[in-house]
């Protein structure tokens, strides 16, 4: 089993797809000679040439749109939007065009486009280079949304995204590029819509995405030392969502924490909480806790940045909060 970094895993999925398939090509700002602002596509220009590893001007609308147009002709473009903060520039193309062409045409068209982007806080890039905006896209019928947290996941999910016949928003987290994992020799596609249970547990289910998966695993370790057994579930695909795995887990543990780096308000955790309270109402022994960034733009100064985004201790606090309630209190009165 070779060890790959998250960064290498993304590159490997892209490269393997491009090797086997002329219809796959990548385009984006500074992805060629420079290999992308995060170094993900380093070396790919040499292997595939400038036509298929296509540097673009700073034109987020047009490059996403060009991806859409090529996809409608049956190609499988992968557009890199350098920071997810810049998806704000391409929302029209993503939401009104990519997501809707198939529907508005009554099924005549397909848009097999993958939009890779990355984001998140860390190392103080400031408010315009650190947002986590995945929740927006979960609100858009016609899109699929993926957020991978490990090298093996990112490789298998990116492959499936490229070969999915629908537009996929593919989120990577900036602080994860360096993490490593043993991955299967052969790339194993991971079907979109399948959650991964990272760790089984009995007392609390933590549903976490992106960087928070790792924080949740760390928190679970600490909780174990306190005698609390935590199950960590990474949905991996946010849309469509593997509700069954999440709900089944909560039915077993009777408690749920949702954790992501995006601000809590209107974040993906709200959707998970709404689903879980609905489908596992009678199983819940405590309110679902949400963990996310504080409701502020990401500040520059490291001390503030660090404090704003959630870490394993925040997940742990939420776990403690859910188990701190006695089961009998449920339905019997209000406990603050």
């Amino acid at each position, binding site marked *: 089993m070779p060890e790959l970094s998250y960064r290498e895993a993304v590159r490997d999925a892209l490269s393997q797809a491009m090797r086997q398939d*002329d219809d796959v*090509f990548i385009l984006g700002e500074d992805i060629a000679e420079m290999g992308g602002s995060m170094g993900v596509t380093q070396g790919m220009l040499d292997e595939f040439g400038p*036509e298929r590893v296509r540097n*673009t*001007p700073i*034109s987020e*609308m*047009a*490059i*996403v*749109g*060009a*991806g*859409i*147009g*090529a*996809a*409608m*002709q*049956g*190609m499988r*473009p992968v557009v890199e939007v350098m920071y997810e903060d810049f998806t704000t520039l391409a929302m*029209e*193309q993503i939401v*009104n*065009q990519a997501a809707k*062409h*198939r*529907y*508005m*045409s*009554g*099924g*005549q*068209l*397909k848009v*097999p486009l993958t939009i890779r982007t990355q984001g998140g806080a860390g190392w103080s890039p400031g408010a315009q280079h650190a947002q986590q905006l995945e929740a927006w896209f979960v609100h858009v*019928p*016609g899109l*699929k949304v993926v957020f991978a947290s490990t090298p093996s996941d990112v490789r298998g999910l990116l492959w499936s995204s490229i070969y999915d*016949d*629908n537009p996929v928003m593919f989120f990577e987290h900036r602080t994860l590029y360096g993490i490593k994992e043993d991955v299967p020799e052969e790339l194993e596609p991971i079907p979109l819509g399948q959650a991964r249970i990272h760790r089984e547990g009995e007392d609390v289910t933590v549903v976490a995405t992106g960087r928070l998966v790792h924080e949740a695993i760390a928190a679970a370790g600490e909780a174990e030392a306190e005698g609390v057994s935590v199950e960590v579930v990474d949905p991996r695909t946010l849309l469509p969502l593997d509700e069954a795995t999440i709900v089944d887990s909560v039915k077993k543990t009777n408690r749920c924490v949702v954790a992501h780096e995006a601000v809590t308000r209107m974040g993906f955790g709200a959707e998970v909480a709404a689903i879980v309270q609905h489908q596992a109402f009678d199983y819940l022994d405590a309110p679902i806790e949400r963990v996310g960034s504080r409701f502020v733009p990401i500040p520059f100064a490291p001390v503030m940045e660090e404090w704003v985004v959630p870490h394993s201790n925040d997940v742990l606090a939420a776990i403690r909060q859910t188990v701190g309630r006695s089961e009998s209190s449920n339905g019997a009165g209000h406990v603050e």
Partner: protein
Amino acid sequence: MAQVERKGAVSEELLREFYREMLLIRRFEEKVEERFRAGELPGFLHVAIGQEAVAVGVCRALQDDDVIASTHRAHGHTLAKGTHPNELMAELYGKVEGCSKGYGGSMHLYDVERGNLGANAVVGGGLPGIVGAALAFKFRDEPRVAVAFFGDGATNIGTFHEALNLAQLWLVPAVFVCENNGWAESTPAHQQLPIDDLSKRAEAYGMKARRVGGQDVEEVFAAASEALEHARGGDGPVLLVCDTFRLTGHYVGDPQVYRPRDELARLRETEDPIEKLSARLDLTDEDVQEIEAEVVEIVEGSVEFAKAGTDPQPEDALKNVYA
């Protein structure tokens, strides 16, 4: 010689075909206005009355496997690109037999088999996609051209700028056809465009540009043929500005309070592209009546076809979201 034949003299026969097609669009649009007033048509409708020569002149210059993207004002382009009036009218009635199966409506007409990649209700929304389609043609070495229609108003939106820049940079086989009718809804040129000659916008990209009288179908056809040849030949995209007139409101039902009272009547007098073409053709009264009758029959037929069409089932709404 071939050159001259293609660009210069359009045969009388071809011009008659243009005439017939333009008249078909005109009568179709008039019927749309009528059926709208009758309360039969849902949605927001924008007719292309006055702009028929652009649709026909450009689309007749296309080859069959060229593709187009259209706008909110899409009926003319759609008919000219070969969609049967029945399917178009059925779409306006929201029927399963419609060219978008009832999912799209007037502002979202698709006919992929005939190379219509979709009308777009977002101004400028279709332009980047055309660059991408053209890029795919280039990748695959297919001698096809992708054409975007859009209005003068659309030249003010960022998408236009980014799309043209990208197209020129990558020298993709695309033609950008601006239907310059002097209005964006109620907003006249001087309130939205700081320049007169829109073809100058191509200079920002070093793109080849041409500006033609859009009421003269022959001129449009010739210019479009040339632009297409340029693009198809690998010499890069072209911006083709067709000065035209919207001989009607922005949308069907538009009271046009913003428009000088007499402008419309005057323009209908002087700038009707169908009149202009007819003046050039040797049409006998009989010819005219014959074509008129044929066209009217087709249009009437399309209404019958549409009305006899099938309403989707409500639950059909759940289909076609994902492939």
